[in-house]
């Protein structure tokens, strides 16, 4: 029996508010997350991968920052100061992107899905058809960690890698970012036009001085006859939230939709009471 088995494995410090893996099994349920994680599996990390996964589950990863071609993360290990994990990802050239975008415009689905924050099912085939992989292979990846462990990738890197799978689940654009194209650029080139700048705040209406005429001042004008439209208890709750889809980088214990659906239902009952003029209990 090798002697090192006598040592207690070092325990990481408890970390609060870290990014906790959401799914009970695996990291990320979407095909593209799985596709990403398959790369990690191909390293054959063994026990380091297991530890990495449990790190990811217990929220040891404090932050992840994704930029074009690189990932920076902080992971709480056994030392007080968190370790810095960095990953370098090879980016695709503008010319390569041009080829890919041309191929993507064959199906409206690709643009529609990407615009609404989802990864189309067969997008990878489009990449393959032009011989440019969307997902980096081992060759395209360089990883480093500030921990004393000399093996690379270490468990900290593995944890970050696992969580990235989940992040990609919610924001597939991150894969594109890693591969060298920003969301905005991708959109502009997919729709053929720039993305409209929108904001839900409207331009401020002009000032409106008070009328000195007592009747206008006190009584205003009669209410429009068609002020009240049909008010119906919605057959499905939280439709607006459903339309918006999953929240990117969700870290809550309950998925957003699941958490707000009962709130919408309860509020409908109260709103109906108020509308119908019944006293709110």
């Amino acid at each position, binding site marked *: 029996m090798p002697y090192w088995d006598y040592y207690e494995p070092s325990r990481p410090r408890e970390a609060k508010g870290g990014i906790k893996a959401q799914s009970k099994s695996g990291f990320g349920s979407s095909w593209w997350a799985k596709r990403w994680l398959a790369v990690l599996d191909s390293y054959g990390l063994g026990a380091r991968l297991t530890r990495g996964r449990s790190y990811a589950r217990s929220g040891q990863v404090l932050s992840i920052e994704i930029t074009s071609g690189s990932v920076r993360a902080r992971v709480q290990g056994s030392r007080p100061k968190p370790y810095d994990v960095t990953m370098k990802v090879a980016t695709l050239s503008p010319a390569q992107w041009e080829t890919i975008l041309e191929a993507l415009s064959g199906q409206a689905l690709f643009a529609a899905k990407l615009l609404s924050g989802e990864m189309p099912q067969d997008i990878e085939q489009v990449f393959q058809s032009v011989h440019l992989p969307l997902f980096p292979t081992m060759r395209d990846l360089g990883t480093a960690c500030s921990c004393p462990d000399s093996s690379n990738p270490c468990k900290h890197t593995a944890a970050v890698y696992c969580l990235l799978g989940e992040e990609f689940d919610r924001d597939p654009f991150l894969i594109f970012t890693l591969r060298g194209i920003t969301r905005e650029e991708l959109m502009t080139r997919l729709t053929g036009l720039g*993305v409209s700048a929108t904001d839900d705040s409207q331009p401020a209406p002009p000032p409106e001085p008070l009328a000195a005429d007592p009747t206008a001042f006190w009584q205003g004008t009669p209410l*429009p006859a068609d*002020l009240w439209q049909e008010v119906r208890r919605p057959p499905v709750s939280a*439709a607006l939230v*459903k*339309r918006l889809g999953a929240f*990117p980088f*969700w870290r809550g214990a309950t998925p957003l939709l699941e958490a707000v659906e009962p709130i919408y239902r309860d509020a*409908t009952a109260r709103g109906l009471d108020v509308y119908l003029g019944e*006293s709110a209990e």
Partner: protein
Amino acid sequence: MLLLHAGLVAGRFVVWGETEAAPKTGTGGRAAKAKRLAAVPSLWNASSESLVATLKSVLELPRASVLNSENFLVWLPTVKGVPVPSSPILAPFPEGEVACVIAPWQVNGVALSWEQAITLLCACAGRDTLEGGVLIGNTLCYWATAMRFTGALVARQQYLPGLEKAEGGYVARWRPVLAGAEAHAASALARAMPGACRALSTEAETPPEVSAIRVLAEFLAETCDTLVRSAPPQSLSLPGAVTPKPRKSKSAAAFDSLHDQWLFALRSADGRMQGEAKELADFAAQVQEWRRPLFLSLAAPFRLCFRLEEPLLEEDTDEDADKKSGDATWYVRYLLQSVEDPSLLVPVADAWSKKGVVTPLLRRDDFQPREFLLTALGQASKICPEIEASLKSAAPDGYILQTRGAQEFLMEKAWMLEQAGFVVQFPAWWTRKGTKQRLTAKASVKSPAMTSLAGLSLDTIVEFHWEAALGDLLLSREELEALARQKMSLVRVRGQWVQLDPKEIEAALAFWNKQKQDKTSLRQIVRMALGAERAPGGLTIEEVETSGWLQEWLARLNGSASLETLPPPEGFHGTLRPYQQRGYEWLRFLGEWGLGACLADDMGLGKTAQTLALLRSQWKAGGNRPALVICPTSVVGNWHREAQRFCPDLPVMVHHGLTRTRGDDFRKEAEKHGLVLSSYALLHRDFELLQNVPWSGIVLDEAQNIKNPETKQSKAARGLEADWRIALSGTPVENHVGDLWSILEFLNPGFLGSQAEFKRNFYFPIQANHDADAAERLKKITRPFILRRLKTDRTIIADLPDKIEAKMYCNLTPEQASLYQAVVKEMTEQIEEAEGIQRRGMVLATLTKLKQICNHPAQFLGDNSQIAGRSGKLARLTEMLEEALSAGDRALIFTQFTEMGEIIRKHLQERFGREVMFLHGGVSKKERDRMVERFQEEGQGALPFFLLSLKAGGVGLNLTAASHVFHFDRWWNPAVENQATDRAFRIGQKKNVQVHKFLCAGTLEEKIDALIESKREVAANVVGTGEGWLTELSTAELKDLFALRQEAIADAE
């Protein structure tokens, strides 16, 4: 009196008030001193004490709770240095050309929490006053409407969670998402906002100029957030659910993530988020980014529209096509609908066109059709997988689906798409509730052979059989089975698409295969015919086919055939007018069949007389068993007098007052009488006693008293047993859907289903969805049991004299009675010794005092004391005016005492929140002409009540707008009274006029009236000159005249 107002200042909802201006003498010094300040207190400024006390009472806050009043500025229209108040009750609006400026005034204001503001505004809904003397000002009224608007948008779930930067950090908020029709409605609501709603400020230099739309947006946002945040959980009965505790903010460390904290803060009291500023700012940006696609779509000048197109029908519209209807090919087409002009629908092909080429139809500022379409379809594909599948081509314009898919689209997907803000268009045969054509059941009843209805009751059993129908088509058993085999909810039957519930068909088939014939009671048949029942399997019963006597009987019930003519009841003294005779026959008809009846004739058409005719006839028919009449305390005396007048041989027992019979004697005593009169208060208090009597029938007068089914008196009313039941109401009960259930449940238990069923089937659809079908169904079920005739009905007018005079007997309150007795005692002690002029003076003084007491203790005491709840007459007047107001009628009220006029005026203004004019001797000619003009005016601002002193209002006025004349006290001079009455009744009057002469039962008022009635011709000569003749009566006669009879006293409630 307090007139409440409200406005928004710096995000707070501030309530302020107006009240009568303090007497000039008291404020002179203060006003002079205050001149040096930027703004002086408004002349009408309500005190902080009255504001705080009123709000605590309305909001039901504990007395010890803290509600602080602060100083605010309100910018008001000001004429010659005096602010113009909101209502003419305080001071008239300036007329003609006057210089009016906006100037700041100081007022006391109370800033409410938004939760409190919501409670206050909900309490204001549909009312003029909050409580006696607390009037809802125009501004508060406006905010109450805006509050309902928030309620509607919360009910429709038009809002999203957000995270906003606020003073001192970030706050989680629910924010309204207004788009399309709702955005239009909101701007219309903003345009209607009175300037006064945004006139509050804390700054004295410049008047507030913030636009109405911004003020409204802020209000909607705050109330929406509060409603959603604090909505009580509906799922308390679910396992694991716990009663929510008030959520206080927790520190950031208590949460595993910012997301958890956000979810918590969306339901916490203040919504505050804690944590590092940078992290919160990043998160807020993410929330914004997440919401962005929706706002992108909503801000666009187009909406994505899905149109379901039905399969083209080929030539062979025969049964073969019907059978294959499951394989038919449907299409959901994508279109772009213009927001501005919804009739403009652009095929999406135009939007798919490549880079830079935009078809002219889609050309709008900044609008990028391709991006819009991609984004919208991407969002829609999350709701509907078929949409996703369609996106596999480069420029899809829709997708194909089979009938099963169309069924799913119609019943499920379309809803979800609409909810998410997309537009959906349906084939013409589809309504929101399903296909226009539905499978229904038809029951054919065989009338048992018999020649007369004698011996029949609702419990009679009749045979009938079922058939299935589709509109006018009857379906054979085979056809029905074929439909069931398709196991589809959407099928084509003889060329028409019809929605069915296969389970319904199967259940109906299973039942009908077992027994073709069915038997049931006549009561069930009635319910089926009125649509209150469903066929086996849940099918709607479209028709109950009957023949012979049953057909005739049902026709009578639903009013399409006239009722049997009956002779007027024996022992009824009086003549029923033709419509009253019909009312009596109707009451008899329903009563004999054990069905409850609601007689809801307009005030003054003689509901009491019709009911008494029935009571008299049923007394004999019901084996001399007593009937119970429950009425408001204020009319117990009147019922008693009317019963004596119309049915002199009907023994009446008044169960009322402190001396009423209790215990075992009650039943014995009651059974000796034909009619027992009691009040609503005792209905509950003496329920045990009342329950013990085998009543022949029960009458509820002013049945709106049981409109709330949860009150003790409503429960008690439903708990009494009787052969027949009648509810009387002068208000249009059928217009108040919410009140209908309780009254109908008393009359005919179970007809409208349980209260929850009623809410689901009728109340919500009618009130919230404006569902005309549901309203029609409700009408069908209730029509046979409600009879309402209006004075204005042509047939009724023909039956009515132009002027109907009636005496209204009122009760004294215990306070009035004890004052009355004290005065009488004093007089009888002194009169023995008095003589001549002294005696005459004493008699006249006593007479005046007693009349004052009958009017109101405050008039007698002359002490400006509290008004409400102390006078039987005033209570009755208020009730009757309320009824007149609900019918849209106008009324003249005469009194001979100026002081009493002031009391009535003050009371009515505070009770109804409307200006009441008072014409008395001190009013100038010019002013008087203006009053007459205002009373006669038509339209929205019309004043419903006009108070006149008998002397000033007696001559030279033309007040034909009135249809009611009240004589609050009596002159005992018919000529003078008639002259006054004739103000309303002049040539040119097209309405009938009802004259109500008020008397206090059991007092000298009643006795003198009886004396005059008995010697009418003598009266004209002797009495006509005034009250002098009374002084000539002997002491014994005087004592008898003045003595108070016990029954006059009302029970304190």
